[in-house]
């Protein structure tokens, strides 16, 4: 044995504990994940936990520690007539907005999936409204729907239809907001478009050989193949609908006579106008529970109608 080797052997072997070795091995990963984790804890998890605590207090935006009042805020919600009305309005919006926007987005995606000249231009045009700021869109619609001078009523007038009080009647205000929401179909349309391009061509070829027409192919191939996409968009849209705020805040400010007072607008007024922040936090948690329940329900129900090409590990292949 040469002297160097002997010297090396004589030195005590420094070994790290397995836990430390694993930590060192994963250190880079931890460092890369750290900005997100810190941001998540600081900006999401922290406020999330704080709002839960505040929902049991009478916090009124004072620096002092608020009083703990147990379930009082939740009890007060039960007797809040504006809350009931706002919940009704939100459900009304959801019931019409979700199916409407999904059907329209799907229909437009089908059109934009055809092979015609200038398709990139059409796709851009249909997507463009989605990138326009919500406030700008709201003001644009305001001018379109003005009862006396709006373009919509002017167009109706040209064909002999009497003007509708779009935003000045409690009967028409919510349908107007729903109509405005269809303006922003870009995101679901793009998702449908991407999904459509994933449907295997051979399925259409086989159907054609069997004599299937255009509608039959959509009905028996496209829609079943796209059920996971439908499911995703329904879940996202329901969540988004329960959080509708901008149009109701900017265009109608909850009016006329409270006809467009949606849940989040009521929450905003309670928390930031009347400074009942504890009550606002309780309303936020109530909304969270509703959305969570609806999502769980949809998840459970999806087993009956969503078709996945390959079964998930441990799951049966879903049947249609």
């Amino acid at each position, binding site marked *: 044995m040469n002297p160097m080797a002997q010297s090396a052997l004589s030195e005590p072997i420094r070994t790290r504990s397995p836990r430390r070795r694993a930590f060192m091995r994963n250190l880079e990963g931890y460092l890369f994940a750290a900005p997100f984790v810190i941001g998540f804890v600081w900006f999401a998890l922290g406020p999330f936990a704080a709002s839960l605590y505040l929902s049991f207090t009478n916090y009124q935006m*004072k620096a002092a520690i608020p009083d703990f009042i147990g379930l009082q805020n939740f009890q007060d919600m039960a007797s809040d007539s504006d809350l009931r009305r706002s919940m009704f309005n939100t459900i009304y919006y959801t019931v019409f907005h979700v199916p409407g926007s999904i059907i329209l987005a799907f229909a437009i995606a089908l059109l934009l999936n055809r092979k015609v000249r200038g398709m990139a231009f059409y796709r851009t045009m249909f997507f463009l409204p989605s990138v326009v700021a919500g406030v700008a869109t709201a003001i644009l619609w*305001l001018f379109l729907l003005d009862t*006396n001078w709006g373009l919509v009523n002017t167009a109706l007038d040209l064909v002999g239809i009497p003007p509708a*009080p779009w935003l000045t009647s409690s009967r028409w205000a919510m349908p107007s907001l729903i109509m405005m929401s269809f303006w922003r179909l870009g995101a679901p349309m793009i998702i449908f478009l991407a999904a459509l391009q994933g449907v295997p061509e051979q399925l259409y070829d086989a159907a054609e050989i069997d004599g299937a027409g255009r509608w039959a192919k959509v009905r028996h191939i496209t829609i079943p193949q796209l059920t996971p996409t439908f499911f995703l968009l329904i879940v996202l849209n329901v969540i988004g609908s329960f959080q509708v705020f901008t149009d109701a805040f900017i265009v109608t400010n909850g009016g006329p006579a*409270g006809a467009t007072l949606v849940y989040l607008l009521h929450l905003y007024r309670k928390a930031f106008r009347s*400074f009942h922040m504890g009550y606002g936090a309780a309303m936020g948690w109530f909304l969270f529970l509703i959305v969570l329940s609806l999502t769980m329900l949809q998840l459970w129900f999806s087993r009956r109608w969503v078709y996945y090409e390959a079964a998930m590990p441990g799951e049966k292949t879903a049947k249609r």
Partner: protein
Amino acid sequence: MSQEEKKGKGLTRRKVLRASLLGGSGVVGLAVLAGCGETQIVEREVVKVVTQEVPVEKIVTQIVEKEVVVEKIVTQIVEKQVLVEKIVTQIVEVAPAKAETVTIRWANWVASGPRLAQWNGLLKRFTKEFPTIKVQNEPKPWPQHWDSLAVSFPAGNAQDVIWFSGATFLKFAEDGVLLPIDEFVKARGINLQDFWTQADVFDFQGKLHGVPFFHTVSYIMINQRMFADAGVEEPPREWNAPGWDWNDWREKSLQLHKVDSGGKVEVFGTWVTQAFENMFGGLLVANDGDVMNPAKTKMTLGEPKSRAAMRLIYQFIQEDKISPIPADPSTFISGAPDPFARQVVAIRPWSTSSLSNYIAAQIPFDTVAWPTSPNTGHTGATYNANPNTVSKATKFPDQALEFAFWLAGPEIQDFFGALKSQMPSHIATADDPGGGWLTAPPKSNIVANEGQKLDAANQMIDLRFHKFWLEWVVKIQEIFEKTLIGEQDFDEAIDEMDSEGQKILEAK
């Protein structure tokens, strides 16, 4: 680990001595540096020296238990630190402090439009006059202004000077985040009697918190071109003048209202809304009515005098159909020109807050007094006193108050008077705004909705001083809107306003 190694890792006398000497050298070094620097730097170093003393003390505690000798060394160090402080004191005495430029922040809700340019111009004038005070303008639109304050006050990051509204003043005053300013006012010999009763408005628990700025007063604005085109005589400018009562208002509006051959409105004769301020509040006062009793315990909208005043608005919209429907969003949306600015309305009762926009848009308009009630023979008008306040957390209260009182001073009040875009708070200026325009309404006809201690008979109770005023007013306006858009019977709506308003009063 061997015994030697363990010993080597422990605390030895030598190590303690070395650490102490190092610490002492550091302190002395800092002192030398401090002595070489400017006055400002020296002051900062003093703070550092004191802070660094803490770890040394910790070591002392550890050592005293083991080694008595170390105590002496530490004592020496402390003595050196005292020496440092002496040096610093000397420097401060020798070099007088330079006048520092201080930056204060001003929160307000003039975030766009012609008023923003005017106000930025004011800030430049202030900086010229007070070169050591820089004012950073931090305007936000009305809703965001309050959202921001609701968060920044608890966070301790509110602006130094804040433009306030009576609608929310009480809430923040109760929270104790606003600075009482009586001492400053006393020290400067400021006579609040020179201002339009505003001093009383922002008293909280006997202490003054608000600095007068200007008043938002309700007026009638008329489109002079439309009057000329229709051959209708313009109303008088003087308050309580004969020949200008509610019936005259209605008659002129009917004459000015224009509909095309297809039945489409070209010009609305007038434009009334469901608003309490600048609208039915003034009508109630003119008719000797009120919204609630003086004790603030019972709503009184249902009483005949009040009901008659409210009916006038209903009549314009639902019976005569000569006013836009109040729910029409184009009448209130922020940033969009309103119907008077679009010149499709001939008579607009509202407040001075819109004047700058109309001046900038070159609308051919003038302001006239509110018409009198045919039942009482006198007028009614509302005004809001929105003062500047100072945050209790400000580091520069003197500079902040200097700025706030400069805005209330004669120079700026004259500026508002000459512009005719605001009603000055300064009485002399308000009474003579440099022309026959924007004549201040007589005090006897003003709705004192912020607690003004007016000596008039027609004083309305201090509703805006009610903590839940905002909640109350939103509710009653929402119900009133229902009847004005034709979805509820007028009398039923008034009854509901009374009962719902009553609920809020009782709940609070």
